[in-house]
């Protein structure tokens, strides 16, 4: 199924718009996913992640804009798109009357693979479900159902795989297993699209991250690029006495964003040598000498909260402008 393609992109989304009744969910969403990479769509609850996945997997139609998966349009060529994808939704969509083995064989038969039984046996082994393979699902724990759900979406080796919040509600061990599965998929050339609310998950797994907020992609790039957009790495400074702390705070506030936590000062900085030298020279000129200092590089959390902060400011300004 892995043919030659015209573009590098497994997924292309342009100006997607979707609303339900009078609630607008997606305003104008655009992004691309390079073939054979992991893309993480990051956003809070209700930000439209699942709506985006539902559109890309042909479950719902957008109100505007276009989306293609392996160059097939999700609206016009839905059945072609379905041959390219497999989906694991947010809730385990498994047949509770059948056994795990029967669920997997059912997927194999529906995907017209040559040997459904053998594929089922392999996946049961891989996902540690062998012991319970022939028991009805009613006896399964939530974690086991989730594992089966994911195994079912791997039957047939679809070239583009969607996971909607794959690790929400999983214990740490299953979570690590899930991450391993995603890495293996990508090693074999599969394109993975996942949504998550966990920043560390996106940071670890994704080649590219898109941050969805207020119905728009407010930032996107590699984890490193996103962190690079911030000058908000922190320098942590400690001083000998209270007098010095408050003087230092006054002195540095002129150039930097400074926060005081107990007897420490947290100074926003891009962490470059030039800026560090500048900072220490200014302290020395004022007769101040920190007793201890350390630096913290920006994290994806910082990026996320900064973006949300900026958005809030903009909204406020817009409202302000509207009022006049």
């Amino acid at each position, binding site marked *: 199924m892995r043919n030659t393609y015209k573009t590098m992109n497994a997924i292309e989304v342009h100006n997607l718009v979707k609303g339900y009744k009078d609630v607008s969910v997606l305003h104008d969403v655009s992004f691309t996913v390079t073939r054979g990479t992991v893309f993480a769509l990051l956003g809070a609850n209700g930000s439209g992640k699942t709506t985006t996945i539902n559109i890309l997997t042909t479950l719902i139609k957008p109100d505007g804009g276009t989306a293609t998966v392996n160059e097939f349009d999700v609206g016009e060529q839905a059945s072609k798109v379905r041959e390219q994808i497999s989906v694991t939704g947010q809730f385990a969509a498994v*047949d509770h009357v059948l056994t795990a083995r029967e669920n997997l064989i059912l997927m194999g038969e529906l*995907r017209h693979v040559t040997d459904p039984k053998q594929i089922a046996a392999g996946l049961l082994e891989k996902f540690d479900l062998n012991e319970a393979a022939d028991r009805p699902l009613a006896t399964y724990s939530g974690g086991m159902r989730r594992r089966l759900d994911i195994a079912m979406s791997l039957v047939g080796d679809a070239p583009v795989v969607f996971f909607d919040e794959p690790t929400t509600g999983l214990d740490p061990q299953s979570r690590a297993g899930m991450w391993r599965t995603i890495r293996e998929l990508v090693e074999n050339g599969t394109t993975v699209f996942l949504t998550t609310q966990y920043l560390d998950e996106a940071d670890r797994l994704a080649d590219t991250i898109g941050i969805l907020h207020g119905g728009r992609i407010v930032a996107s790039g590699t984890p490193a690029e996103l962190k690079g957009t911030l000058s908000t790495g922190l320098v942590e400074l400690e001083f000998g006495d209270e007098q010095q702390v408050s003087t230092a705070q006054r002195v540095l506030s002129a150039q930097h964003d400074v926060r005081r936590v107990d007897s420490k000062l947290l100074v926003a900085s891009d962490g470059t040598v030039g800026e560090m030298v500048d900072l220490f020279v200014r302290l020395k000129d004022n007769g101040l000498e920190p007793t201890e200092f350390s630096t913290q590089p920006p994290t994806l959390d910082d990026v996320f909260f900064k973006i949300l902060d900026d958005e809030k400011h903009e909204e406020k300004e817009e409202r302000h402008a509207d009022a006049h």
Partner: protein
Amino acid sequence: MQTLTDTWTMAKRSLRHTTRSPDTIITVLLMPIGLLLLFVYVFGGALGTQTGSIDYVDFITPGVIIMTVMSGIAYAAVRLSTDLQQGVISRFRTMPVAPSSVLSGQALSSTASNLFSCLLVIMVALAVGFRPTTDPLAWLCLAGLLALLILATTWLAMFFGLLAKTVEGAGAFSYILLLLIFISPSFVPTDSMKPWLRGFAEHQPMTPIIETMRSLLVDGTPGPDIWAALAWTLGILLISYTAALSVYRHRALVAAAQ
């Protein structure tokens, strides 16, 4: 070709659901068999005087068979609605599966399991004195008509199952169909009804179907109502099939997602 394979796969799945929940088969059979016994042994003495030359058990057996069908097909709606709530339908809809196969498979398995239920009810009727004078050809006609009726009402049930917001709601619609059986010549001749009700009872879809079945079972011939019976069942089948498939294809059925 792919549609046929997929339909068969779906039918196998759906049949497994039926055979693994024998309680649903018992529930389906309980009411018609209970009513059969009630009518024959309790009400039969009083009502039986009104059915003329026909023995009362022979008179009511067609109605009891149809009642079996109406309570049986409700499970098609319930199972479809359950699949919808559990996200299984959403999963199928993202797969390269012929869209009609999900519903057709369910319809096939519903037809098979309901024909089986009907067979069991006929055996109980025979045990309590039902004496049909039917030749093999008439039995074949009866089986064909029953299969068509089950298929048509299963598609109708699935249409409601797709629209229902809850699994309970999906099961409730069959009460309407059960009511239609009582307001028909199933258990008492229509001339004993009030005139306004009689008009309805004689022209509603269940009536020609019951009359044809009775004619096949008692006289061994389809009788004059066969064309009306076929027209109603084929009409219901065609409309329900189109409506159910259209709902399945075009509505956003992302039930469990929110």
